[in-house]
């Protein structure tokens, strides 16, 4: 059975059957032809493409290793030495971007593309310089909301085209490193409602439907196919009618065809020379022939017109045994994987046998037309090593090693410089009527940076707001790329001369920028002043999603008092907190 059989076309038609089939194909006990590691850097929810992508990869027996980076934190991920991107370098980086999240002014009527262009150039060049992955970019679509309302303008379209033109330019400048997925073309293949689901766009910032995701997945998979097939290291050759015309055991040394100029011997001579050029490139050459050993050595090493010599060979199995067993034995002797071997034989029966018993080996039947035989080993990029056909990537690997030798402090400095360049403005506001709805919504939706994960309705937030013994703060963030609106919530209750932090959360879009420290610090100062309290209490309630904040209170300066039923309880007195965050942002408190 083959994986392909577990994934017929029809499984694409229903999501449940796709998810189930992909799951089965991933876990079935069939050998892989290779592995492909793909990491998405993105500013919206593109996770729904995963089952479609896996479908195409699995059909080619490529083991998928797929991960998704944080929301809208592409630059930080590149700079952070501990990010998933850097600690587990991918073969392919898929940069999935929507223009409205990349430049929040792109929905405005007089938007110009220069900001976004500069950011994109910098981002892509950064990726090229600091990774050795191939980068897949997408052309920019119009903002989704505007597509849904049909509110497209010629001016914005032409600005957007500047970005897309630049993307095409990048693929021409760096063909080995940058590849483009034409989303505009994909979109043109269907109506807007077929491509975009307005409900999921609103609810989860995941706009794309099946037909669009399917096309995108195909683009990514095609790139993976090119890259995922492991380099072949060893060529195993049959002898009779492959290295020479005729059968040595029957025709004898003078009866076989092998000659530099006469036909048909010339084709076999040329074929042997192409084998020698592979040998020169470091490919291992081996023989697997059903013959008496001595007959073979009568040609190799003894025949005047035989370019191939015993010295060129790393192993041979010349006997009357089953070829699959022999090939497996060679693999073991050389200590290489079956999937790095290529086997060439003229006999359809031998090829079928090896293909059936050793599917990981690439079996090539020698073409019947001798003239075609010569090119069979060099066509396609069968024996290309990743570096020899990609000068750029090789140079980049050197650069990357160089960069890794620089000390950590350098990377931190770069991060600070980057964060400063964002020109972050953060506004911390005591919530009254305005913003109440958004605050409630954030308590319901935020999972990762959420210390206590308490879900509140509007009515419940209003109760906090109206109570003299409770207070609600919200944080809004804007930077050079636009306004992100309310992205943080803090709720505190008075308890005698203490204040209890009931809720503290941040939207994942604003992580990695020290905003959490700015927010907690400013809120605590405000409350200490107003309520004249002298101590604090709070908790960290672990969930499956919020493990990244398990040490947040410790880092802010709280003392862990006890742990009960997995909840960590903290307290702190009045104290001054560090405010280095002021170096990289402006804070307003209202």
């Amino acid at each position, binding site marked *: 059975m083959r994986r392909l059989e577990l994934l017929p076309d029809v499984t694409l038609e229903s*999501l449940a059957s796709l*998810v189930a089939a992909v799951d089965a194909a991933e876990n079935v006990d069939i050998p892989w032809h290779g592995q492909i590691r793909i990491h998405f850097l993105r500013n919206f929810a593109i996770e*729904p493409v995963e089952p479609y992508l896996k479908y195409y990869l699995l059909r080619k027996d490529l083991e998928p290793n797929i991960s998704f980076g944080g929301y809208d934190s592409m630059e930080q991920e590149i700079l952070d030495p501990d990010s998933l991107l850097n600690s587990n370098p991918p073969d392919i980086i898929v940069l999935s971007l929507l223009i409205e999240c990349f430049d929040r002014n792109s929905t405005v009527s007089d938007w110009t593309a220069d900001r976004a262009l500069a950011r994109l150039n910098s981002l892509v060049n950064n990726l090229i310089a600091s990774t050795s992955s191939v980068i897949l970019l997408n052309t920019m679509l119009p903002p989704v909301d505007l597509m849904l309302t049909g509110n497209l303008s010629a001016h914005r379209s032409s600005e957007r085209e500047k970005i897309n033109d630049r993307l095409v330019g990048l693929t021409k400048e760096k063909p080995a490193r940058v590849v483009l997925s034409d989303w505009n073309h994909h979109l043109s293949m269907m109506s807007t409602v077929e491509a975009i689901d307005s*409900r999921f766009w609103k*609810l*989860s910032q*995941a706009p794309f439907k099946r037909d669009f995701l399917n096309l995108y997945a195909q683009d990514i998979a095609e790139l993976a196919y090119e890259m995922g097939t492991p380099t072949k290291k060893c060529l195993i050759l049959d002898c009779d009618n492959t290295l020479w015309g005729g059968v040595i055991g029957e025709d004898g040394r003078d009866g076989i065809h092998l000659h530099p100029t006469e036909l048909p011997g010339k084709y076999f001579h040329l074929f042997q020379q192409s084998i020698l050029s592979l040998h020169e490139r470091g490919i291992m050459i081996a023989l697997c022939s059903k013959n008496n050993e001595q007959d073979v050595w009568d040609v190799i090493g003894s025949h005047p017109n035989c370019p191939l010599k015993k010295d060129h060979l790393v192993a041979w199995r010349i006997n009357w045994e089953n070829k699959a067993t022999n090939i497996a034995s060679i693999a073991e002797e050389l200590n290489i994987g079956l999937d790095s071997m290529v086997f060439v034989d003229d006999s359809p029966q031998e090829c079928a046998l090896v293909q059936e018993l050793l599917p990981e080996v690439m079996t090539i039947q020698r073409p019947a037309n001798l003239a075609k035989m010569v090119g069979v080993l060099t066509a396609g990029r069968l024996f290309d090593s990743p570096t020899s056909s990609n000068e750029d990537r090789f140079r980049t690997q050197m650069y990357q090693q160089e960069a890794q030798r620089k000390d950590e402090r350098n990377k931190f400095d770069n991060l600070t410089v980057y964060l400063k360049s964002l020109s972050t403005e953060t506004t911390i506001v005591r919530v009254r009527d305005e913003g109440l709805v958004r605050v409630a919504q954030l308590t319901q939706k935020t999972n990762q940076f959420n210390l206590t994960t308490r879900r509140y309705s509007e009515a419940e937030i209003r109760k906090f707001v109206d109570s003299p013994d409770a207070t609600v703060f919200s944080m809004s963030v804007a930077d050079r790329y636009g306004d992100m609106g309310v992205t943080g919530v803090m709720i505190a209750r008075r308890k005698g001369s203490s204040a209890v932090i009931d809720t503290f959360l941040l939207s994942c879009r604003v992580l990695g920028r020290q905003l959490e420290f700015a927010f907690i610090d400013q809120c605590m100062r405000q409350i200490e002043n107003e309520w004249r309290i002298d101590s604090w209490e709070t908790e960290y309630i672990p969930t499956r999603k919020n493990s990244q904040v398990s040490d947040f209170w410790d880092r802010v300066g709280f003392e862990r008092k006890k742990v009960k039923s997995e909840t960590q309880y903290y307290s702190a007195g009045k104290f001054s907190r560090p405010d280095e965050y002021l170096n990289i942002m402006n804070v307003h408190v209202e």
Partner: protein
Amino acid sequence: MSQIFDIDPSSIVAESSPQTIERWDSLKHMQLIMALEDEFGIRFSDDDIPELTSFKLIEDAINASEPD
């Protein structure tokens, strides 16, 4: 539900919800809705989708709806 959340169908009960099924997060919720729409040929509205937070609620909604 068993396929989207990768769990044993026998473990799903009327009260099964995001609180009781670990994998049921907002993205999986979206996949679940899409899968249900495929399966039953129906379409939930914007307002319905966030409310479908238990097996029972989903069952009721499907029974109440008409096919596309």
